[in-house]
């Protein structure tokens, strides 16, 4: 992937990533809208990071792979806008079978997902989910961005992290 240096304001725009990149960029603009922040689950800022995080996992998502969003875990339309290369669906934890990644609200939801699909990458905005060893990752954006990962949950899901990425996150 290559980033084109913008003529005004620094390097931001992604060029060769086609639809995914365009989606990311469009989504970034959507952040200025107050409605971009959902009341529950991951807000727009967390979601933007969560999507990027998936690129630093050892097991990559195949084109068309399913990303399951549990009710309230994130705004479905926002996820679809960002992840046009994946099939984004909303459903309960029981429908996690075959999903590459699942956005969840809590540790209990993550545990249900894992029962249905032990290989699913569970991502949440709740750090408690990672602390409980239930979610693979959790995203925090305030007061500053930090990404938390559970070694236990990652091992259960058969996930390894990109080594540079691993140096930048907080492992639990």
């Amino acid at each position: 992937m290559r980033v084109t240096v913008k003529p005004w304001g620094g390097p931001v725009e992604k060029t060769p990533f086609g639809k995914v990149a365009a989606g990311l960029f469009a989504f970034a603009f959507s952040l200025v809208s107050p409605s971009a922040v959902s009341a529950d689950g991951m807000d727009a800022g967390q979601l933007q990071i969560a999507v990027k995080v998936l690129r630093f996992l050892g097991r990559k998502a195949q084109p068309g792979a399913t990303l399951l969003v549990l009710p309230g875990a994130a705004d479905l339309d926002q996820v679809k806008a960002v992840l046009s290369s994946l099939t984004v669906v909303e459903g309960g934890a029981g429908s996690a079978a075959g999903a590459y990644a699942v956005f969840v609200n809590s540790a209990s939801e993550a545990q249900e997902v894992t029962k249905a699909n032990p290989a699913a990458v569970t991502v949440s905005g709740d750090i408690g989910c990672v602390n409980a060893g239930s979610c693979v990752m959790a995203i925090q954006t305030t007061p500053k961005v930090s990404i938390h990962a559970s070694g236990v949950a990652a091992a259960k899901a058969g996930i390894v992290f990109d080594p540079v990425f691993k140096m930048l996150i907080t492992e639990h």
Partner: protein
Amino acid sequence: MRRSILLCSAALAVLAGLPAAAQSIDYGTFEEMFHEPITTSATGKPQKVSEVPVNMEIVTQDDIRRSGADNIPDVLQFVSGLDFRRSSFNDGEVSIRGYDQPWNPRLLLLVDGRPVYEDFYGDVVWQAIPVQLDEIRQIEIVKGPNSALFGFNAASGVINIVTYDPLYDSTNVLTVRSGTQSLAEGSAVATVPVGKDAGIRLSAGGLRASEFQKTSLPDFLANGMNHPKNGAFNIDGRWLVRPDIELTLQGAAAQDQRNFPADGTPEQDRTTSLRGRLSANTDFGLVDFDVYRNVWKIDYRGLQAQQAVNEADDIRGSDLFKIGPDNSIRLSLEYKYNQASGQFFNGSTIFYSVYSGGGMWDWQINPALSLNNAVRLDYLELGVNGGILPATGLTAASYNGTTLNAVSFNSGLVYTVTPKDVLRFMAGRGFQLPALNDLGQQIALPGNAVDLGQPKLRPTSVLNFEADYDHTVVPIDATLRGAVFVQRNEDLYGYDVALPRVLGANTLSQSANIGASDEGGIEIALKKKSTDADGLRWNLGYQFALVNDHISGGVVSGVYSTFEKGTPRQVVDFGVGYTFGRWEFDALGRWQSKFTDFQIDAGGTYRPMAVSDYVTVNARGGCRVTENLTLSATVDQINQASLYQRAGLPVERRAIFAATARY
């Protein structure tokens, strides 16, 4: 060259046998993800800037562009804690926390981690750094010694210039500049993707100008001066050999022509470099092999015309890995061979080998507290091939067999007190290695006298203790940083052309260890946090430094200035910028208190020179004419027609008009 090929082959052979899985730092993506820059210049480990255990400043591409500067030192002069002195159009010195001097040896400059420090004189030749401003992603400035990571000469600090990565970044920029002092300047940067797993970035640039007015100098100095000019070319290729192994090949060439008015010496420098780097993620960590060769050709056309060639070959390897979730370890080995030959050495060759080993341990004690410790051992063996002038009183045995050991360390404790408050406590010791001419220069002079290096010269050690406090000031969206530091410099040395100048029996000048110096200081800086495309940006900083020399022996009084007098006590830097729509306006300023420099007089004798306190303000206005074309006008030193930043030529006001096309 043969040595470099052998070293490179060895590295390739080792990596070929590694089980590997993915490696590379995508600075842009990580910065977008974490909303702050990423760096490896603090500890060798990728880290968020807010978490590094050092005092670090980051100058972004946006900062560079909006400064309107056409050279790196002009960008750095407004960075808090940095000292900058220009002595002619194409020559200036940058130092960190005082102790600035001609041929400043205390600052290590890197480009993408490769040292571009010139070991012959022991300084940074800023005009011959083969990097165009448009290809710089960020400039990372570490204040305080960092020899435990980078080795010799990271004494007062380190500056690492990080360029755009042709694997991840597409950078295509053409810039032309014209202005006062008959300036004609241009640069071009282009990225060429090679499939989806490789990319090449090419850059080239150069300038030609007229020198500042020389009426302040004696005729014998002014008459020999050259027209300032420089040029550089760089090619940087990166290839994901496998999804897991990245190969970097880089080549660069640059030359400059500049004048040192304080010493009356025009000089030409030519440099070439080759680099190969292999990095991989393996079962036992991030493994990195880096081989480079730097060659400098120095053509000194001063009072005694001399030429020299300096060749440095270096191979280094490191392994970075985590043990459990909270501990990161980095182990490193390095070998460097460095030699210089030419008329400076009476036709002989002086050389040394440095064997180094180091380790770094980063411990996340709890979510709010981390401790980083690093240590490094450097072992140097010195030697000479060729004759030794009898007048020096030395023999080959004085060089061969001379060794030295240096143990450097860095420790840093980072405590996140609240989400808005971070405390850092740091201690470190770094070393400034005497330059090759300090160790081995032997220039025959009339009357059986010599300019003399000293093979037994000891490196200067810099011991630094520091406490920093960062606070986020939410109501004004700003970051406040306060720093307090104390520093002990031991085994300072005087040498040929800098200060203090040391005279001995039968010598015009000679290198010698001359004592110690202490420094204490505070720095306070307030900077607006977010740098939105539209809106206001500003910063304000204040620095106070007090230097106390303990110099003794061999110094002829009256012909030198000390570090104590040569370091300005107070500096204020400030900046403000505003963007609306297609327009942006910026002003950067600096006030600096007086200090004492030295300058050669009409009789050829060095005399102290008082440099008055001064204010300098640069202003820039830019307009985005189209999506791809920007026009800008910059006036350097808008408030004064000319002023002395140090001994030498008074620095003149400059007007620079630039057109930049990005595609």
